[in-house]
């Protein structure tokens, strides 16, 4: 069929249209659905109340992550340690009960495969190129790193997917972010995505699906692509994706739920067609020179509040938009910072390495490389490393990374969302700062009054060593 050139996003969209309505709304088939304990109970409850079933249980995968404490889960006698917080425990047992009742595959709290849902999906070969993937969590965008159209949904949509395996959607506009050149030493995928959000703003991608294109993304590991796509939502875009390539296929081969044998060959043949055609039109295009990007940090309470580590806290008057000036003033007051203050003089008392953005093996290796043979500053009171899954944890322990962390004075935890979102015991105390590898620096995100500075894993490790935000490139021997 001689069709007009299409973007990767359009190709995936077109392949999933069940029905198109007159007004352009489409019924879209959902290939993969991930479920966790926080946004699913009301959806299962609604199914129960209306006597509805899960249409395709094998296309949904459930795992607890948000609520689960990251301290030991099994005691010395091999018994499960109960969760102290009653509401959390109730939500976790609801997930266990719901998945059993509706026949959904479930990795329990003490399974080796348990982890943050966005780490588990790709790691288990459940998230595949060219698929539509949803989850009741906005960081579902992460799965775009394997070339999927992946986006977060609300609980009513979770119910809709469980009951019908489809969603009613309007096609988004297509946006490309092209990054040419190479990232400098010490500059990572996290620094790049923070920089991008700083450029486009938190609403820059609203109404768009972003395709990340250019040399930098082609050179990147799959883990790094997952990090970039993960934070698409911080730029306002529900989804972001990178075209799948041989790296993607090598990453997915032989994983638990990946296609096997002849199926694998057929799948790869199809996946190779998943790239934007030459001449395809994007509704918006942003170009960025990779060589200009430095390790990035946030100073405010919005992910667009980004400066290079060598920079200073901006003055609210430096923003043209009056509402942004007002927001900046409120941010600076909350953050306890003054305009003109150097970012690399900001002291931190807490360090968090983890979250669906930065808890994969590559992230832990990057942090360990900085920490190896060194010791955290005494002024850093709390520093934790939380692997993204049980499999990441095992791999890190096989490589001896856990010992590097503990010898540096950091705690080595069980997998989960941890201090990313202040709904489990891992929280940052009020008025204290945290160098955090997570994705949101919102007011109260890491706990009431907590002050978050978003950074890469290597930069978080550097901050742990010096007790202040630090240019990791200056720590190099």
């Amino acid at each position: 069929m001689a069709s007009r050139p299409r973007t990767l996003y359009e190709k995936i969209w077109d392949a999933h249209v069940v029905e198109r309505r007159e007004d352009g709304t489409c019924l879209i088939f959902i290939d993969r659905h991930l479920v966790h304990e926080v946004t699913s109970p009301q959806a299962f409850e609604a199914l129960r109340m209306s006597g509805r079933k899960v249409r395709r249980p094998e296309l949904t995968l459930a795992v607890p992550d948000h609520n689960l404490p990251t301290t030991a889960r099994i005691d010395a006698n091999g018994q499960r340690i109960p969760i102290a917080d009653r509401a959390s425990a109730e939500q976790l047992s609801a997930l266990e009960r719901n998945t059993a009742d509706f026949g959904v595959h479930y990795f329990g709290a003490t399974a080796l495969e348990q982890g943050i849902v966005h780490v588990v999906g790709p790691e288990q070969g459940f998230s595949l190129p060219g698929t539509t993937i949803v989850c009741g969590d906005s960081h579902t965008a992460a799965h775009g790193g394997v070339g999927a159209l992946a986006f977060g949904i609300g609980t009513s949509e979770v119910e809709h997917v469980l009951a019908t395996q489809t969603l009613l959607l309007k096609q988004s506009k297509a946006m490309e972010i092209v990054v040419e050149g190479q990232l400098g030493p010490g500059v990572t995928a996290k620094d790049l995505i923070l920089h991008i959000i700083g450029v486009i703003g938190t609403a820059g991608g609203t109404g768009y699906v972003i395709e990340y294109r250019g040399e930098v993304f082609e050179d990147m590991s799959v883990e790094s692509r997952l990090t970039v796509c993960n934070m698409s939502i911080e730029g306002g875009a529900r989804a972001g994706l990178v075209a799948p390539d041989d790296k993607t296929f090598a990453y997915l081969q032989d994983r638990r739920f990946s296609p096997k044998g002849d199926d694998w060959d057929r799948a790869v043949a199809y996946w190779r067609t998943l790239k934007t055609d030459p001449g395809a039109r994007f509704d918006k295009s942003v170009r960025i020179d990779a060589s200009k990007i430095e390790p990035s940090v946030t100073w405010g309470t919005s992910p667009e509040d980004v400066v290079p580590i060598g920079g200073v806290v901006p003055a609210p008057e430096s923003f043209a938009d009056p509402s942004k000036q007002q927001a900046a003033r409120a941010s600076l007051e909350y953050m306890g910072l003054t305009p003109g203050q150097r970012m690399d003089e900001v002291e931190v008392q807490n360090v968090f390495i983890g979250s669906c953005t930065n808890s994969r093996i590559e992230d832990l290796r990057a942090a360990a490389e900085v920490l190896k043979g060194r010791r955290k500053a005494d002024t850093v009171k709390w520093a934790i490393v939380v692997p993204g899954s049980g499999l990441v944890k095992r791999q890190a322990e096989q490589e001896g990374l856990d010992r590097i962390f503990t010898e540096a004075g950091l705690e080595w935890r069980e997998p989960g969302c941890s201090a990313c979102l202040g709904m489990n015991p891992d929280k940052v105390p009020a008025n204290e700062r945290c160098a955090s590898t997570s994705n949101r620096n919102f007011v109260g995100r890491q706990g009431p009054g907590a002050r978050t500075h978003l950074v890469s894993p290597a930069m978080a490790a550097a901050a742990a060593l010096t007790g202040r935000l630090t240019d990791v490139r200056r720590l190099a021997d």
Partner: protein
Amino acid sequence: MEPVREIEGRACPFGRKNVDTDLIIPAKWLKTISREGLGRGAFEALRGQPDNVFEREEFLGAPIIIAGDNFGCGSSREHAAWALLDMGVKAVIAPSFSDIFSGNAFKNGILTVELPQEAVDRLLEVAETDPVTIDLERQIVTTPFQDRFTFEIDPFRKHCLLEGLDEVGLTLARDAAISDYEQRQDSEMPWLGRGTSLAA
């Protein structure tokens, strides 16, 4: 769901830009397995501050909130919509909304009205002293002072809101089309539909 036609009453002149769903309902309130009672946690961080608009007597139970750009950004938590609903909010007026939030709001019968910043500024002014009316059928927002702002809304969403339709029920009626799609996918990409039954 209750049909939505006209929403009339006091409108809370919030005005803030980039209101994220963590601000609407903090994470500690998400540990619930029910949709009820979340209004108590709505805007908790702001309500603790002196002179905040939500605690002003005239805006308690106000059916409308007027906010700045990019309302509902951040986390996909539908608890944000449930919390607003529990506060008595039936509509939010803002220059723009996050995609996920506006979908969640719609699915709970909350109307999101997009108006240009100038119109929002005018409504923020009026709302201090007087009520605001939203007529969904005619797609206009009016005030007692002859202000009249028309807004756009997706026709399907409008229809569902006016009739109080349940989207899951509507889609389940399309079962034959979904089955056709599944059969086509199974013959073209048999590996795709196996999902978790495909364990190594």
